[in-house]
């Protein structure tokens, strides 16, 4: 059994650049938040990490990008590998240089900097010359034409949607191969959410960027992702192809809010039990 697991992770390491292997995360030395999370992001894939408030999505992403330290969090068990290298031995700076970058929940734009300066901060780690950076900037403006119009505005005074675009564009400026995207839909109108996801999909297809997407909005996430993991209380309770998850009756009921017929029937009770078991 243990051998089988080992083989599985080894095989995964061969195919998937990013592998999270059974990690446990503790905040402030006492608050146990992740209790054994495993997942992998294959080259060029879009993987959704789903779950309710406080399930541990953000914590998982920060564990990968090694930003937990700044929040007194610590990975106490398991390991996270990026192309075979343990991420806990790398600083966020080194991870960004290797192409792994996080777009934080709540956008976190530099408010007093212009939109263009915000984007340019993303190129801090690059050493491939001003011309290449300028090319990336043009590419960002190509994907987000709205940002080009707003390039000289102070980011703090742009709209929520524009700030989300700025945050994603800023990450793109690092020339990443893997983006950890934390709740891009937060607080945005449905139409804008759609627009942003379309762009993310295009980036994934045309630029070959792998994406690990943390979302509460299960519906939209499963529409664009290839694969999904469902997180509850710090554990992965279900995973599978996005299409399969979309059709799964439990997911439908608990995450998509689509109740099947006969809510009050025996089925309901069964689901409730199953859910209880996850918890």
């Amino acid at each position, binding site marked *: 059994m243990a051998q089988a697991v080992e083989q599985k992770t080894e095989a995964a390491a061969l195919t998937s650049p990013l592998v999270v292997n059974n990690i446990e995360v503790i905040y402030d030395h006492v608050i146990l938040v992740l209790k054994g999370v495993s997942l992998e992001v294959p080259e060029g894939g879009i993987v959704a990490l789903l779950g309710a408030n406080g399930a541990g999505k953000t914590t998982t992403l920060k564990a990968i990008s090694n930003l937990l330290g700044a929040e007194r969090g610590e990975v106490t068990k398991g390991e996270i590998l990026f192309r075979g290298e343990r991420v806990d031995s790398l600083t966020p700076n080194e*991870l960004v240089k290797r192409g792994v970058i996080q777009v934080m929940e709540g956008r*976190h734009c530099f408010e007093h900097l212009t939109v263009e*300066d915000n984007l340019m901060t993303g190129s*801090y780690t690059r050493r491939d010359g001003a011309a290449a950076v300028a090319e990336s900037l043009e590419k960002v403006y190509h994907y987000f034409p709205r940002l080009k119009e707003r390039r000289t505005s*102070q980011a703090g005074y742009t709209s929520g949607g524009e700030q989300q675009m700025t945050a994603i564009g800023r990450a793109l400026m*690092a020339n990443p191969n893997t983006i950890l995207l934390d709740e891009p839909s937060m607080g945005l109108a449905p139409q804008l959410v759609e627009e942003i996801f379309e762009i993310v999909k295009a980036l994934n297809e045309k630029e070959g960027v792998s994406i690990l997407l943390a979302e509460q909005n299960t519906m939209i996430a499963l529409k664009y992702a290839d694969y999904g993991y469902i997180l509850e209380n710090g554990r992965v309770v279900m995973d599978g192809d996005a299409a399969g998850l979309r059709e799964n009756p439990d997911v439908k009921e608990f995450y998509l809010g689509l109740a099947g017929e006969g809510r009050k029937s025996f089925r309901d009770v069964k689901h409730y039990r199953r859910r209880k078991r996850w918890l």
Partner: protein
Amino acid sequence: MEFLESILVTPFIEIWESPYYFIELVLVGLSTGVLYSLVALGFVLIFKASGMFNFAQGAMVLFAALTLVGLMEHGLPLWAALILSVATMVGLAFLVERFMLRHLVNQEGLILFMATIGLNFILEGTGQLMWGSDVKRLEIGIPDQPFDILGGKVLLNTFDVTAAFIGALLVITLAVFFQKTPMGRALRAVADDHQAALSVGIPLKTIWIAVWTIAGIVALVAGIVWGAKSGVQFSLSLIALKALPVLILGGFTSVPGAIVGGLIIGVGEKVAEGFWGPALGGAIENWFAYMLALAFLVFRPQGLFGEKIIERV
């Protein structure tokens, strides 16, 4: 009544009647003001990048000047002493990062402030321990000769003008560095949101070292100019006290604010001394800055240029 007239009316009539004296005071004021701006800039940079009010800024001025003088007393030529002093301030920045900042990540502002009080005493102590505590003359070869402009009506002094020029050059260099270079942009990013800066790969360690290095060099230049004027002695560290009203005037987070605030206070105190001094019994220069700061605290606490806190929902 007469008194009111002597402070509300007479000085303005005098300014009107003797415009050249006024111009002279403004120019002299600008030349001291540039130095106030410099010291205040050191504060602002550190405050922005690490949220830390650096109580030790004045001690850094003293420490830097003492190092320079000490090295020159050991027979080094000015240029060599200057290079070594800059190296010392860079070294200090590394030490501060290694032994202080690194251990204080995520701490409260008050704790950071107390740490800088500790640093203040360490710097004052080691500076005087190494180089002694007597007043030292600093001879850097700037001539100190009066000269006049505008047909002999305005009297200036080569030292003040040179000092102002050096200060202005440094201020402009810093402003350009801050606004136009990748490192400057990274500094501003860290000042805005250090978590987000970390997430795009900006290493805080490098930024802190850069900021403290700049603050150290600013302190060195201020120490040199002031020290050459009035001797290198303990009271140099009190320059920092003048930076406080400048910061209140300009806003703690604003680079242009520090520059303009310093100039306003420099000019203000000279003009006040010249025209209001007689009516108020002189020595206005000593308290003018604090009065002005007090007025600002009451009427415009965010300062002239304090950054607006952007709030959006």
